[in-house]
């Protein structure tokens, strides 16, 4: 049952093969057994989960269950959950029991989803390894000496280890796709504006976007369908009808289901920097896509190499502004001893924020300061436009863009902890997609020489989620990488 897909869980619940309470208990017991080692959850909400499961069982009995009623899930701890500790991976919010629900949390509650608890993450979603969490790093379920990726590392590890069948995440520079790749699962970041940011603790608001994790594209499609939708409380929420991404996957199988799909391969993503084992897995996956009827064409993203420098101006600039709200006055940590008001701010923030968060706030403060704004912030925004235009030009020649999600498999815990720039560079294939605001998906595509999972990234045009999910689903119908599990979930 722990490895069942969402449609299988739905059937088991509907025919009363298992109750939602039994299902939640099954996963809660796995969390009790495995979380001390993996540290994928910051908070486990057994009582809340069982109460939600009982309510779900009543809905199922009454015949009013929806697609996700009674399905357990883990929420990234960036989403505010009413009455439940919401830390964002930071000491700053170590005492913050949210007085309200994020929009995504309300939507999933209304759908009858059973939240098991809050998943570990890099502090304020700033990191690619989960090592910046105040609550200690999450371990990769495939090898506990490796990082799970970040910043949604707890969510990805929870799904990979089957501590939850699905999980929410957020992706500002790769934080859904990268941990999905490192943990051997599927993750999708939709078009910017599809998932409401209300109650999603802000890092870089023009880049932050909620996303979905599951073992398969099909599970992601079901979860994402329940997360999207216009929300007037988010000023950048898009007013467009919601889509049922799972419906698109239901088309009957055929020998060449991807006939006509043009896959663009950016020559800059297949250049030096990609590890040999990643290249071999990506090449094999692309061969599989061609066997399904897709064609591949070389495209170019000439400004993609500038995505990381531009990102590390724009994201810190927005972060320095967003995180100014943590001042020890209305919520969060306040220093025990202080003099005047300015001293209270400075000491509370010094104690509440970790080293990486402080660095990004300082970088952002610098690039926004008088005399540097044009040279850094505006230059980064001009590059952002060039990068977005590159994608639009490439997408004239193809329907989706494919390449590696990450240049290597998951590195060892501690390997990059003292070298922020080296870690930043590992996001080379993911950050450009956030700058452009495009949808991106990572799905398992094999294993490296070290036995660690490798992900393939698919990028679509704006609102191309259904196409990405369908392509990944067709791939997963004829391959088994997404069904491989680490030893702890075998």
């Amino acid at each position: 049952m722990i490895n069942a897909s969402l449609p299988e869980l739905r059937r088991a619940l509907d025919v009363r093969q298992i109750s939602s309470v039994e299902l939640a208990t099954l996963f809660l017991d796995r969390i009790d057994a495995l979380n001390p080692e993996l540290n994928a959850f910051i908070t486990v909400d057994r009582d809340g989960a069982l109460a939600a499961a009982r309510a779900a069982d009543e809905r199922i009995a009454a015949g009013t269950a929806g697609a996700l009623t009674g399905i357990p899930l883990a929420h990234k701890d960036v989403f505010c959950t009413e009455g439940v500790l919401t830390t964002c991976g930071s000491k700053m919010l170590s005492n913050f029991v949210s007085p309200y629900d994020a929009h995504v949390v309300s939507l999933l509650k209304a759908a009858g989803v059973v939240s098991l608890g809050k998943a570990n993450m890099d502090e304020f979603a700033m990191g690619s390894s989960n090592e910046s969490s105040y609550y200690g790093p999450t371990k990769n379920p495939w090898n506990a000496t490796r990082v799970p990726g970040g910043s949604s590392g707890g969510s990805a590890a929870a799904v990979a280890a089957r501590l939850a069948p699905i999980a929410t995440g957020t992706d500002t520079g790769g934080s859904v796709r990268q941990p999905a790749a490192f943990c051997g699962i599927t993750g999708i970041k939709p078009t910017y504006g599809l998932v409401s940011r209300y109650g999603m603790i802000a890092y870089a608001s023009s880049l932050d976007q909620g996303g979905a994790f599951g073992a398969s594209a099909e599970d992601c499609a079901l979860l994402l369908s329940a997360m999207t939708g216009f929300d007037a409380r988010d000023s950048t929420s898009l007013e467009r009808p919601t889509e049922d991404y799972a419906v698109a996957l239901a088309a009957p199988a055929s020998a060449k289901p991807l006939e006509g799909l043009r896959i663009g391969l950016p020559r800059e993503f297949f250049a030096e920097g990609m590890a040999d084992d990643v290249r071999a897995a990506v090449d094999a996956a692309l061969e599989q896509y061609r066997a399904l009827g897709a064609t591949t064409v070389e495209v170019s993203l000439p400004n993609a190499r500038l995505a990381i420098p531009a990102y590390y101006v724009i994201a810190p600039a927005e972060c320095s502004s967003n995180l100014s709200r943590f001042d020890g006055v209305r919520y969060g940590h306040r220093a025990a001893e202080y003099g005047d008001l300015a001293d209270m701010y400075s000491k509370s923030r010094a104690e509440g924020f970790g080293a990486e968060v402080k660095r990004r706030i300082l970088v952002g403060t610098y690039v926004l300061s008088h005399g540097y704004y044009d040279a850094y912030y505006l230059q980064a925004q001009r590059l952002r436009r060039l990068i977005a235009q590159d994608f639009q030009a490439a997408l004239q020649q193809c329907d989706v863009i494919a390449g590696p999600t990450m240049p290597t498999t998951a590195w060892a815990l501690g390997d990059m902890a003292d070298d922020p720039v080296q870690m930043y560079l590992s996001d080379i294939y993911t950050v450009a997609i956030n700058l452009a605001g495009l949808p991106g998906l990572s799905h398992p595509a094999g294993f490296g020489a070290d036995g660690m999972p490798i992900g393939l990234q698919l990028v679509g045009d704006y609102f191309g989620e259904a196409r990405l999910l369908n392509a990944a689903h067709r791939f997963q119908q004829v391959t088994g990488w997404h069904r491989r599990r680490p030893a702890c979930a075998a």
Partner: protein
Amino acid sequence: MSLSNEQVGHLARLARIALSDAEIDATRSKLNGIFGLIEQMQAVDTAGVEPMSHPQELATRLREDVVTDENRREAFQQVAPQTEAGLYLVPKVIE
């Protein structure tokens, strides 16, 4: 570009983050590494390119000027470090 300890101290004061001298030293070397990365942007001529602040070209949505939310002061103040009589308490700022 290379920041001095004085500049890092100034940034920390602007950002309202207390840093000790030892922390300033450690932070400076990390920040200089990050700015080394960022400097790569300067090699590109972006003359005439309109800055892109946001992925979607959205106009600000307007709404009627009416109350849309309930007063939840008590719930919100429950998570505050120090309150009294419905007010947030901070050190005295006016003598």
